[in-house]
C-alpha cells in the first residue's frame, strides 16, 4: 500500500524536476535557434535541436503513458476494485511525467481512493497537497478536492477545518452533483454543531435537492432535516421526513456512523 507522506514528497519533487527539465529543454532549443544569427556562434546547432526535440517527444510519450495508466482508476474505484486502482495509481505516480497535469491527476485519484476507503486522515492530507498547487484550468479537481477535504475533516472531528473547506467552495460555481454533495455536508455539519434553525432554512429547496441524490444520501440528508424538525418541535414535518427515509433505506444503514440520527428513528410514529 502506498504511503501517503512518501507519495506527497515524491509528487512535489517530481513536479520540481519536471519544471526544471521543461525550462532547460526550452532554453536549449531557443539558444540553438538564435545562437547563429544573434550571437554569431558559427556552429551547426541543428543536431542539438533535433536531440532536444527527440527528448521532448520521448518524455511527452511517457507522460501520456502515465495519464493512460491513471485514467482507469476512477472506474475501478467506483466498482470497488481498490487494489487494482491502487496499483494503477502507483504505476502512474512512479512514471516520470514532463507535464504537471498527469502527476496532479494521479494524486487526485489517490485522494479519491483513500476517501472511498474511509481513510480520512490520508484523504485529507492528499487533498491539502493538491490544493496547495496552482490548479489553473483544473477547477473541477479543486472543487472535488475541497468537498473530499470537508468530508474527511468532518469525519475526523475537525469541524473548523471542514467549515473552512466548505467556505472555500463558495468561490466556485458548482455543478449540480457538487451542490448536492455540499448540501449533504452542510446538513451533517449543522447537525454536529446543533444549528437546527439554519438547517431548516429554505427547506422546500433542500428537499427538492435531496430527491436528486442517490438513495442512501437522500435518506441521510432527509433524516438530518427530520432531526432538526424534531428538535424544533415541528413534529408533522419530522414525521413526514422520517416516513420518506424509511421508504428510501434501512434506518440502521442511514444512521451508520452517525449515532445522532438513531434518535430520529426511535420516536414513535
Amino acid at each position, binding site marked *: 500500500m502506498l504511503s501517503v507522506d512518501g507519495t506527497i514528497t515524491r509528487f512535489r519533487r517530481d513536479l520540481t524536476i519536471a519544471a526544471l527539465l521543461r525550462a532547460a529543454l526550452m532554453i536549449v532549443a531557443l539558444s540553438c535557434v538564435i545562437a*547563429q544569427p544573434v550571437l554569431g556562434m558559427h556552429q551547426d546547432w541543428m543536431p542539438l535541436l533535433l536531440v532536444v526535440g527527440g527528448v521532448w517527444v520521448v518524455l511527452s510519450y511517457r507522460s501520456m503513458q502515465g495519464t493512460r495508466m491513471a485514467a482507469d482508476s476512477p472506474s475501478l474505484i467506483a466498482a470497488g476494485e481498490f487494489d487494482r486502482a491502487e496499483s494503477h495509481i502507483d504505476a502512474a505516480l512512479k512514471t516520470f511525467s514532463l507535464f504537471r497535469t498527469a502527476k496532479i491527476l494521479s494524486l487526485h485519484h489517490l485522494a479519491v481512493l483513500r476517501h472511498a476507503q474511509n481513510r480520512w486522515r490520508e484523504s485529507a492530507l492528499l487533498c491539502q497537497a493538491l490544493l496547495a498547487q496552482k490548479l489553473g484550468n483544473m477547477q473541477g479537481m479543486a472543487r472535488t478536492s475541497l468537498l473530499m477535504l470537508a468530508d474527511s475533516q468532518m469525519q475526523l472531528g475537525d469541524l473548523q477545518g471542514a467549515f473552512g473547506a466548505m467556505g472555500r467552495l463558495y468561490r466556485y460555481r458548482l455543478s449540480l452533483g457538487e451542490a448536492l454533495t455540499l448540501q449533504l455536508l452542510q446538513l451533517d455539519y449543522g447537525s454536529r454543531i446543533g444549528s437546527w434553525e439554519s438547517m431548516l432554512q429554505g427547506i422546500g429547496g433542500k428537499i427538492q435537492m435531496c430527491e436528486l441524490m442517490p438513495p442512501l444520501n437522500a435518506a441521510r440528508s432527509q433524516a438530518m432535516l427530520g432531526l432538526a424538525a424534531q428538535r424544533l418541535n415541528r413534529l408533522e414535518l419530522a414525521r413526514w421526513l422520517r416516513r420518506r427515509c424509511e*421508504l428510501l433505506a434501512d434506518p440502521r444503514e442511514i444512521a451508520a456512523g452517525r449515532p445522532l440520527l438513531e434518535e430520529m428513528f426511535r420516536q414513535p410514529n
Partner: protein
Amino acid sequence: METAPPFLDVNSLLEASEPRPRIPFTQFLIGGFILAVVLSLFIDRSAQGGQGEQLLQTMIGFGLMGFVTWIMVMGYLSARRLRAEQAAVGAVDELVQLRRWPEAGIMLQNMLSRPARSAVARAQSLLYLAMVLARYHRFEDSVKVHDYILEEIPLDDMTDHAVRLGRAMSLLREDNLLDADRAIAELRRTSRGVESAGLALVEIYRDVKTGHPAEAVEMFEKRQEVIRRQLGHRAADAWALVARAYDFLSRPADAQSAFENATILQPLGELLRRYPEIGPLTEKYKPAPAPAEVA
C-alpha cells in the same frame, strides 16, 4: 425560401451530429520534423558555408519552432473545444435531472445540429435526446433514437441496459405492447441474472397495462428491496403502479397504503404525467398529505 427543420427532428439531428474527420495534426508534425531533418542534412552536404547557408539553417530552426508552437496552439484550442462540448453535455444532464425539459431540448437541438467533436459526447447527447422526446410524449421518435444508439454506438453493459430500459418504457407508453414484450424478454436475457430495479419497474408497468395485476403485485413484492435500493425517490413509480394493481384486485386498503407511499416520495402531478394509467386512483384514494412547509 429555406425553412428551418422542426424542433428536435430526429433524422436531421442524427445526420448533422455525425463527427467529421479531423485534420491530422500529429501527422503534419512528424512530416514537418522529417522535412527539417532532410533539409538540414542536404544543406550540410551541399553548402560550403557562407551567409546563404546560415540564413537557411536559421530559417529551418525558426520554422521548426514555429511549427511546434502552431501544433501546440491547435492542440490547446482543440482540447478547449472538447472541454466546452463536455461541459455542454454536463449542462444538459443537469437540466434533465432538474426536469427543465424546454431548456434541455433547446440545448440538445443546438448541440446536435453540428458535427460532434467526440463520439462519447454525441452518444450521451443522444441518450438525453431520447429522454426529452419521451417527456414530450414523442415515443416513436424516442424509440428511433434508442434503436440508433443500440445499433450504431458501442456501449458498456450498464449503458446498454439503461438504453434498453428506456426503449422498453417508450414502447409501453406508445402502446406497442408486442414490441415492448420482446424488448423486456431481450432485457431479461442481456441482464444475465443481475438484479435490476429498472427491469422490475418496466415489467410491473407492462403487467398493469395489460391487465395482469396479480403478476404486477408479485413482481413488486419480490423486488421491493432492490427497487428501494436502486431507484431511490423513483421507487414512487413502482408504488404508484402497484397501487393501481391492488385497486384492480379490489384490495383498497393496500391500494391506499401504496398510493400514500408513492405520493410521499414524489408529487402526484409528476406521477400522473409519467403514468396516465394511475389517473383513476386519484378519485378513490387520498394522496399522502405534505406538511405546510413543503406543500
